[in-house]
């Protein structure tokens, strides 16, 4: 939405509203491997934050510390201003963090409604009552319509029968049902064709327009520049700068990813702060 971010600021901590998510000094080890070193990361509500970097840059590791799949070993995480410790996925979900992973994590044998409401099923006659299929189907239809997700022919179809784009849409829509405030999308367009990619990016914009914070992890810089507001670059487990997602910054972003330009030293977040 708004873009009053100074170019190349080390972290996305803006003066105006408190960031939805603010991470400082994040450290993560996998055995002897130092996967993340003093990483800082911030996302505001109503903002799409691109998270890019080469293979092994620490993108997946970083989002796992947010989603609770692989909690950080050190560092502080603030969610909506509050200091939190994300210990596991349930905890992250309770905070309002929803992650959509590359492998989608859909149950192929369930229909769209079953997947959308997995583990948050509507029930009749109390919390231990029978499933309220009518209420779930109604909500699912309304939500899909409000997001104008076309090409979902029937919410009662098994997701096994659906195309990659449709499945991605189902996975992202799931995040919305859980009152998510922050949605993490891991390579949402990786396996999609042109039309389906456009549909998914459209959906990402709608999430932002609803006031959600979105983290978009992608290898595809074109997609990131199309839809993101800002871009954070990781390199070798460290910050390599945060940039506005405007065409003018494209070279700098590429340089930060590869670490080849002399302007930006290859390691250390301090250096990006020029």
């Amino acid at each position: 939405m708004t873009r009053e971010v100074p170019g190349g600021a080390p972290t996305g901590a803006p003066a105006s509203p408190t960031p939805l998510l603010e991470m400082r000094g994040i450290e993560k080890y996998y055995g002897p491997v130092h996967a993340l070193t003093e990483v800082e990361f911030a996302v505001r509500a109503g903002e799409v934050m691109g998270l890019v970097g080469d293979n092994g840059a620490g993108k997946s590791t970083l989002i796992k510390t947010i989603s609770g799949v692989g909690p950080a070993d050190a560092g502080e995480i603030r969610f909506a201003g509050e200091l939190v410790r994300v210990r596991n996925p349930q905890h992250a979900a309770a905070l309002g963090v929803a992650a959509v992973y590359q492998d989608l994590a859909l149950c192929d044998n369930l229909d769209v409604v079953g997947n959308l409401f997995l583990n948050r099923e509507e029930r009749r006659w109390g919390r231990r009552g029978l499933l309220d299929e009518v209420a779930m189907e109604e909500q699912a239809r309304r939500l899909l319509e409000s997001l104008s997700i076309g090409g979902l022919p029937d919410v009662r179809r098994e997701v096994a029968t659906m195309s990659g784009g449709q499945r991605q849409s189902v996975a992202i829509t799931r995040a919305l049902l859980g009152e998510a405030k922050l949605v993490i999308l891991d390579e949402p367009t990786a396996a999609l064709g042109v039309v389906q990619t456009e549909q998914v990016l459209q959906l990402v914009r709608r999430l932002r327009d609803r006031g959600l914070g979105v983290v978009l992890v992608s290898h595809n810089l074109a997609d990131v520049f199309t839809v993101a507001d800002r871009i954070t670059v990781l390199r070798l487990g460290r910050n390599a700068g945060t940039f506005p997602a405007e065409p003018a910054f494209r070279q700098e972003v590429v340089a930060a990813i590869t670490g080849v330009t002399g302007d930006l030293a290859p390691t250390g977040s301090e250096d990006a702060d020029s």
Partner: protein
Amino acid sequence: MSALPSQVVAEPSAPSSELPGPRAALRKLGRGELGSLRVLIVLAIIWTVFGIAHDRFLSAVNLTNLTLQIAAVGTISIGVVLVLLLGEIDLSVGAVSGLAGAVMASLSVKAGWPAVPAISAALATGALIGLFQGTVATRLEIPTFVVTLAGLLAWQGALLQVLGKTGTLNLTDPGIVNLANTFYGDAVGWILAVGSIAAICAAALLGRRRRAAAKLPLEPLPALVLRVGAAAAAIVAAMAVLNSDRGVPLALLILVVLVVLFDTIAMRTGFGRHIYAVGGNEEAARRSGIRVNRVRTIVFVLASTLAATGGVLEASRLLAANQSSGGGDLLLLAIAGPVIAGVSLFGGRGRVWGALAGALVIGSISNGMDLLNFESSVKFMVTGGVLLAAVSLDAIARMRRRAHGRL
């Protein structure tokens, strides 16, 4: 009684991309989606063949005997279906059923316990075994195949231990014996039939009204009428046959009630949905916050308890528990039945109704071969062949799904 209402209920609205019609139905049949319809066709073929081969096969007496013969294995199969839905396997159900029968017999005959506490103790034995096996498998992350294989051996040993030197315990307590030897007369049978048909109609109409009120797409009326009508016809036909012999067997009622109960749990409760989710994509289930190991452990408790229930019914029918209780081909039949009825060995697909339908198929084959005085050598080979055929059908259905990009 009928396995018909199952698959259709799961998809209240016909997929718009596939117009209903004979060709689409055939295609679905090939993909194994209409597993319940397929098993009915198989059953019809078996009944026709044996009906021609032996004039008494389709008599009321024999069909009533058939229901008595399948009560135990059908009950055990309900638990097997739940385990298969998880994508797991429980090889100990046969041994557990034998042990439960022996525990009950021992308490009743040797210790003089009344029927209800003796039966309860047998069921509790099953529940504890399931809890133990489920906990070991989930905590130590051992494949359930191995844990329950160990169980198969261990519980057989426990059975011998419980029976002691005598080897066979003959049951006399009427409370136990009557389980498999009670028949209800015409009046009770017809009241049950009318009551269950009324319940099916009411459920169908109420469900339709709620969907209409919420402006959701409705199942085409002819399909609904056909579905409910077929179920009603099956109930009436079954009741007519049973009533022209000794009446409705209590053991059959127990089986049907358990099937309806667990089908409701599987299809209409959150826990049931989570079973399907774990079987469909364990990682997805875990990420959504489902406590996967808890679901697994509970299912293993249910499976062993149902196996124990089957063991109680079988001991009651045979009026005894002995060293071969729960042995022989019981385990294989309890697993083969649901698979024949379309429950996938790969997890996540199938209905609890498959336990009843599969037991009918397996039981009919066995019953028919007995009538025709087949040698046990032939019986074993035929049963093995049927099991292989069923598993092959499941595997082919899975391959076709994969070929259609729908793993």
